[in-house]
């Protein structure tokens, strides 16, 4: 079967690749949105945290012999702990100031973290193999489905769904939503708001680390892997708007798919297509697809 002169299986495998990228965009923009909602900080170091998630996994395998599955749980915790330190030590003191300072601080942090890791590991990729349970591919009849990619999409979507469920449907989430709307009132009800901010930041960067672990076997692990990604995620966030969680997830996945399609039909534009879409959205819907101005 052929569509536009391409075999269906080639097209579908590109779409799957797009979906994999899209699920990274979704998790990262979700974390950005949750952090921004409560802390009013755009976390530039989100890309660095994604990278840390991957590199911590690699280090644990290299130095302590811990395997992928352990690190899938442990790595977000480690990076989340780093997030706690960053929030307590640095970010906390900037909440009273212009939001720009939060962006600048996290930008500086990104340079610092990347620089340190680059001075140790260089900028070429570190090898990381796919866990043996997920190597190979499954024949679906119309296409070969690489097991690991399917797992990435499945795991990412599950995490996105759980996050959505926790924030929208549970008591804990209702605190978070209330804090986003009116921090003073939440505090007046006796909720430990500063602690909530710390945990939210840790949770957001933990999400980034989780997707970093997922990415480890398919993207070259290098200290610089996060920074180009985070700029695309910024564009995703501008397109989707940060008002709605479901919106972030859908925009992330959708743009990943579009990027995958561009790779098939016009590969030269695959790097720039997300930014071009952002420009178009800004022209016609400045507040973003799901956005409301904050």
């Amino acid at each position, binding site marked *: 079967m052929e569509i536009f002169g391409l075999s269906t299986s080639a097209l579908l495998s590109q779409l799957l690749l797009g979906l994999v990228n899209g699920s990274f965009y979704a998790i990262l923009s979700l974390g950005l949105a949750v952090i*921004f909602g409560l802390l009013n900080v*755009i976390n530039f170091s989100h890309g660095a945290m994604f990278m840390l998630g991957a590199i911590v996994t690699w280090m644990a395998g290299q130095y302590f012999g811990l395997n992928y599955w352990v690190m899938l749980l442990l790595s977000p915790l480690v990076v989340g702990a780093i997030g706690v330190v960053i929030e307590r030590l*640095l970010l906390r*003191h*900037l909440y009273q*100031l*212009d*939001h*720009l*300072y939060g*962006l*600048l*601080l996290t*930008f*500086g*942090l*990104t*340079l*610092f*973290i*990347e*620089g*340190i890791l*680059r*001075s*140790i590991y260089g900028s070429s990729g570190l090898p990381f193999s796919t866990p043996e349970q997920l190597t190979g591919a499954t024949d679906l009849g119309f296409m070969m489905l690489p097991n690991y990619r399917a797992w990435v999409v499945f795991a990412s979507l599950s995490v996105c769904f759980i996050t959505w469920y926790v924030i929208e449907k549970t008591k804990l989430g209702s605190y978070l939503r209330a804090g986003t709307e009116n921090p003073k009132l939440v505090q007046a009800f006796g909720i430990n708001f500063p602690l909530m901010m710390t945990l939210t930041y840790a949770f957001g960067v933990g999400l980034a680390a989780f997707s970093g672990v997922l990415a480890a076997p398919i993207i070259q692990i290098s200290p610089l892997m996060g*920074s*180009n990604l985070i*700029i*695309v995620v*910024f*564009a995703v*966030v*501008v397109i989707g708007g940060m008002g709605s969680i479901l919106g972030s997830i859908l925009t992330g996945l959708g743009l990943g798919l579009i990027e995958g399609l561009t790779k098939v039909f016009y590969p*030269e534009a695959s*790097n*720039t297509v997300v*930014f*071009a879409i*952002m*420009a178009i959205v*800004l*022209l016609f819907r*400045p*507040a973003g697809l799901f956005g409301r*101005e904050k």
Partner: protein
Amino acid sequence: MNLLVPKFLKPSLYIAIILLGVLAPWYFYPIFLMKILCFALFAAAFNLLLGYTGLLSFGHAAFFGGSGYAAGFFMRNAGLSPELGIILATCFAICLGAAMGGLAIRRQGIYFSMITLALAQMFYFICLQAPITGGEDGFQGIPRGSLFGLIDLSNDLNLYYFVLLVVLFGFLLIARIVASPFGQVLKAIKENEPRAVSLGYDVNQFKFLVFVLSAALAGLAGSVQALVLGFETLSDVHWSMSGLVILMTLVGGVGTLIGPLIGALVIVVLEQRVGEIGNFLAKISSVQWFNSLGESVTIVTGLIFILCVMLFRKGLVGYFVKQK
């Protein structure tokens, strides 16, 4: 007009700085000085947005590097004289600034920064792929030529005084803009945008205009730098360059006239010397790791970023000169 420098310092301080600029090439390597001057103008152009209008652009590398490529194209491929090349390259930056600014001012605050960053990244990828820029190899062999067909710019000293004049012109223009009624409206926008709107100012028009002006001056700096170095590379359009210009402004002092000059001086010298400092630290502390500091300058720039944001938000100028 209050340019955030005390009155008694004003004329004498500026004359002293200009004198230093005139004498400097006799003591220091002119190319190095010209690089500092170009970055000073670049940072001052950026500061026009951040310091005087309160807009944080994260995409200024696009104008700096983009017009560097444009200058190279006009001077090498089209064979135009340097003055024409620089003027046309600045026009290119104006067009690019109008396109990016027109889109970016549609959102406020933090979104503005993200949009400029994303658009500049798009421009970076275009530069990476377009055959004209030479991609990873860079744009080589930009001729210096002679100014107005009279002054031979291949002489480093001639070139230096030309660059000094251009940069001086840029700084005077910025001082004039800031002190003008237009500049006062910009300040009003920075202090309180809704109030400026309610006073009847078309805020978007002002933002757009200052964005284009800032892009033009950044482009001027970039095209002069391309003329000085004779080549243009991708690193000038990369987001790290946008970050570097933010750092220069932050270190020097946001919203001050000479802050960007001082910031550019400090950062360019530091980048140059960081390897030696690392070697020195390795020697006295016998930690071998410090030797690699030269290759990962971002450790140092990142650290300065963090320090500036946490402790020295007014920068060097703001720290030493008490504001009124």
